[in-house]
């Protein structure tokens, strides 16, 4: 059975070289980096070596890197930790509408603590609206958090420009979740002008269990895990040395191979983006065209539903994702597609292929061969499609029509009886 992995926004395959860099720290070098005897010192060296490699990738100083366990933890630490440190200066926070849930839900948590949160809207391609962002800035705005690149639709924000808008019009700090950007495009914290930045190993061919938060020298942050002195007393807990060693190696490799990887991946992406619409009618690209992640392909396939699409793809050995309501555990259309004002019925057919350096031309050809038949199979059983074929019109749906029967338009879920 073929296995073609095209869900690299959720996790990448571990690079063999990163894996090998981890191995000594499982069995032989098991000392706690905080212990001052020799075995501890070996672990400490690995930790600090990795810190340098991570810092190098993003143009930071090693002492500006705080290791965490995952991107969600980094985003929690950034949003809550920076806001709490500045609460005497103001209580207003801005996040973009398409942030990861670890940013959005951290902001929600802060709302319960008395902060006020505004959401910066995006246009139909997923670009943060600069004028709207400017309008949202206030005297008491203390933090702005805007993702560098969106994992679902691939849109890359002009962070440098957004930072200057924020800095010219407020005293707020700027955090960016750069998980999808790091290792894919050049990211330099000095050039971008950000105060904090999140990156993670698991989507750049490193292991799960290691991520980092860059916090600019001099910026105060309140720890979200209290305990010992690890990570400059900003994140307590015994360090995951093997994972961090793998993370460091992954950063080193990414810095070296970024350009050649991006060229390879983008070629495959462009083939899919060009040829899928030639083979399948009524499909629409979601996200930006030019400022787009090298590996991101997201189409809305009209008249069919996304989970059904990726299940049939899986049966052919192709692993992909979808932003449809049924594919989401909470049964809501992806908040990213919703924020971009993608037609809700059409967005239910979203299918997301995210490519990696390990994908090949042959794999993409296989997808191009198999996918049209899968779409056709589902369209052949879709009442929306037969209605369209018979009448040339889209089935009108929504509140007040016959198709609204028993449905709460907010989440469309009939209560279990």
């Amino acid at each position: 059975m073929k296995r073609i992995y095209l869900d690299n926004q959720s996790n990448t395959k571990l690079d063999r070289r990163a894996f090998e860099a981890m191995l000594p720290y499982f069995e032989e070098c098991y000392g706690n980096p905080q212990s001052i005897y020799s075995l501890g010192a070996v672990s400490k060296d690995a930790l600090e070596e990795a810190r340098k490699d991570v810092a190098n990738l993003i143009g930071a100083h090693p002492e500006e890197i705080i290791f965490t366990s995952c991107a969600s933890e980094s985003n929690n630490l950034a949003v809550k930790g920076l806001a709490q440190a500045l609460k005497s200066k103001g209580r207003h926070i801005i996040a973009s509408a398409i942030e990861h849930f670890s940013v959005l839900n951290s902001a929600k948590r802060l709302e319960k603590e008395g902060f006020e949160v505004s959401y910066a809207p995006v246009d139909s391609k997923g670009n943060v609206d600069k004028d709207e962002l400017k309008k949202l800035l206030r005297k008491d705005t203390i933090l702005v958090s805007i993702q560098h690149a969106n994992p679902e639709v691939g849109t890359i924000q002009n962070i440098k420009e957004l930072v200057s808008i924020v800095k010219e019009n407020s005293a707020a700090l700027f955090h960016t979740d750069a998980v999808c950007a790091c290792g894919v495009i050049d990211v330099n914290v000095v050039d971008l002008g950000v105060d904090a930045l999140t990156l993670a190993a698991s989507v750049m061919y490193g292991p799960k269990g290691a991520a980092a938060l860059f916090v600019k020298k001099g910026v105060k942050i309140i720890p979200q895990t209290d305990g010992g002195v690890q990570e400059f007393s900003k994140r307590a807990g015994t360090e995951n040395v093997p994972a961090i060693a793998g993370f460091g190696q992954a950063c080193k490799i990414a810095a070296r191979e970024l350009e050649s990887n991006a060229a390879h991946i983008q070629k495959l992406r462009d083939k899919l983006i060009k040829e899928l619409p030639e083979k399948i009618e009524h499909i629409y690209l979601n996200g930006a065209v030019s400022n787009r992640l090298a590996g991101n392909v997201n189409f809305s396939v009209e008249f069919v539903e996304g989970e059904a699409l990726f299940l049939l793809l899986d049966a052919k050995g192709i692993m992909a994702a979808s932003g449809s309501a049924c594919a989401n555990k909470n049964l809501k259309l992806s908040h990213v597609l919703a924020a971009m004002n993608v037609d809700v019925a059409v967005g239910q057919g979203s299918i997301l292929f995210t490519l990696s350096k390990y994908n090949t031309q042959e794999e993409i050809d296989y997808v191009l061969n198999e996918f049209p038949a899968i779409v056709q199979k589902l369209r052949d059983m879709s009442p929306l499609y037969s209605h369209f074929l018979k009448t040339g019109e889209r089935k009108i749906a929504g509140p007040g029509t016959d198709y609204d029967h028993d449905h709460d338009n907010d989440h469309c879920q009939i209560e279990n009886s």
Partner: protein
Amino acid sequence: MAFYSEKVMDHFANPRNVGEIENADGVGEVGNPVCGDMMTFYVKIKDDKVEDVKFKTFGCGAAIAVSSMVSEMAIGKTVDEVMNITNADVAKELGGLPPNKMHCSNLGADALHRAVENYKSKQGK
């Protein structure tokens, strides 16, 4: 463990009774494209018995599997028997559904019942 049972995957990948019935005795439709699932059921009824069922479904794996399962369950049953098929019966026949997919089984039973009600209302005229 796989997200869906083997039986769900079988009915999803090889759905039975997909299609439409011309001059059907009853047609029932539930769901909403905006919600990501919509089902249209067609029934052919003779001497109070469901002779044939066809459906078209827009939806996720569970929605398609439920449609296929409920169509199989209905064929050969009397109108009253069909009206007594519950969503729980459908889910049980499928070897269970993930909790967040249970509403799909409601839709399947509802769509079938609507088609039969449509037949009954025509009979009443």
